[in-house]
């Protein structure tokens, strides 16, 4: 299917950056690659190694990553009714395949074809994300001191790119402003990484300003999918 190609390219570039930055944060190339296989959720993996790179504890990184991934609970519930009533092993595999691109592409288009689009997009992500991580990680070993190349600023730049879709509506902007403010206010008083977790309160503060929808997080990764959704 044609949509798999742009997804693969976009995810590949993203995975390459993750591989490079994961090794500069202290993961071995093997561990970086394994992380992409077992987690398969880019934003949370970036958050995990970002917290490590900033001197935070791995547990703070893992908890922050999990909070970022709470949205996959909603994504999994959103796609589930469209997946055929297969046996448990098949559904367990479909659970692994719940990522932004697969759910977005699956839900964009005719209902009878949803499961097929979901799986094609998911496998494009699996191949591109894991392959590109390995490439970036084993290549990234060659880069010496990360600060000389400004790689410490590459993390917040990447998080800003991931954040952008939420800044287009009011509730997202409020959640972001409260989260950022809380994180900075707490920085002098708690260990690195902990302010990120506390920032989750921003989502609750922004709740009354929200018009509920999953569309914004679905649009987060993939402009092509947003266009398909707009055409519907």
């Amino acid at each position: 299917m044609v949509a798999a190609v742009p997804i693969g390219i976009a995810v590949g570039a993203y995975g390459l950056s993750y591989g490079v930055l994961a090794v500069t944060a202290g993961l071995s190339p093997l561990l970086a690659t394994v992380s992409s296989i077992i987690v398969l959720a880019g934003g949370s993996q970036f958050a995990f190694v970002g917290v490590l790179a900033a001197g935070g504890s791995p547990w703070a990184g893992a908890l922050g990553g999990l909070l970022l991934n709470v949205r996959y609970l909603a994504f999994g519930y959103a796609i589930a009714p469209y997946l055929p009533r297969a046996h448990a092993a098949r559904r367990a595999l479909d659970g692994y395949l719940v990522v932004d691109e697969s759910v977005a592409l699956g839900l964009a288009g005719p209902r009878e074809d949803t499961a097929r689009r979901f799986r094609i997009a998911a496998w494009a992500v699996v191949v591109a994300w894991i392959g590109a991580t390995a490439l970036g990680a084993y290549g990234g070993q060659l880069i010496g001191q990360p600060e000389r190349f400004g790689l410490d600023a590459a993390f917040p730049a990447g998080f800003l790119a991931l954040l952008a879709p939420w800044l287009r509506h009011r509730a997202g902007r409020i959640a972001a402003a409260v989260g950022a403010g809380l994180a900075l206010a707490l920085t002098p008083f708690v260990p690195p990484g902990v302010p990120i977790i506390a920032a989750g309160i921003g989502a609750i503060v922004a709740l009354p300003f929200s018009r509920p929808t999953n569309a914004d997080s679905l649009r987060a990764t993939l402009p092509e999918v947003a266009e398909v959704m707009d055409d519907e």
Partner: protein
Amino acid sequence: MIIAALLVLAAGTYLLKAAGPLLSAGRQLPERARTIADLLPAALLAALVASQTLGDGTALALDARALGVAAAGIAVVFRAPFAVVVLVGAVITAAARALGVA
């Protein structure tokens, strides 16, 4: 400890993703839960941007990273691809350091 934390992240992420396909049986999550799930990344990603641009351990610092991230922000406004945004942030920060600007 890094490996243990990574395994927790992997296992927890899998449970979040697979709960729908395995357990939902046609039911949906309550609206409020969906909305909070949707807004959590905004709060956390903004916190990551702020603390990694201006935080230095447990201190706050305004240095070359702020220039790099501001440049990355301009790239985001022009809808540059992810890898380009990351590259702009890194290169501008490195340049500012090399020039001794900050």
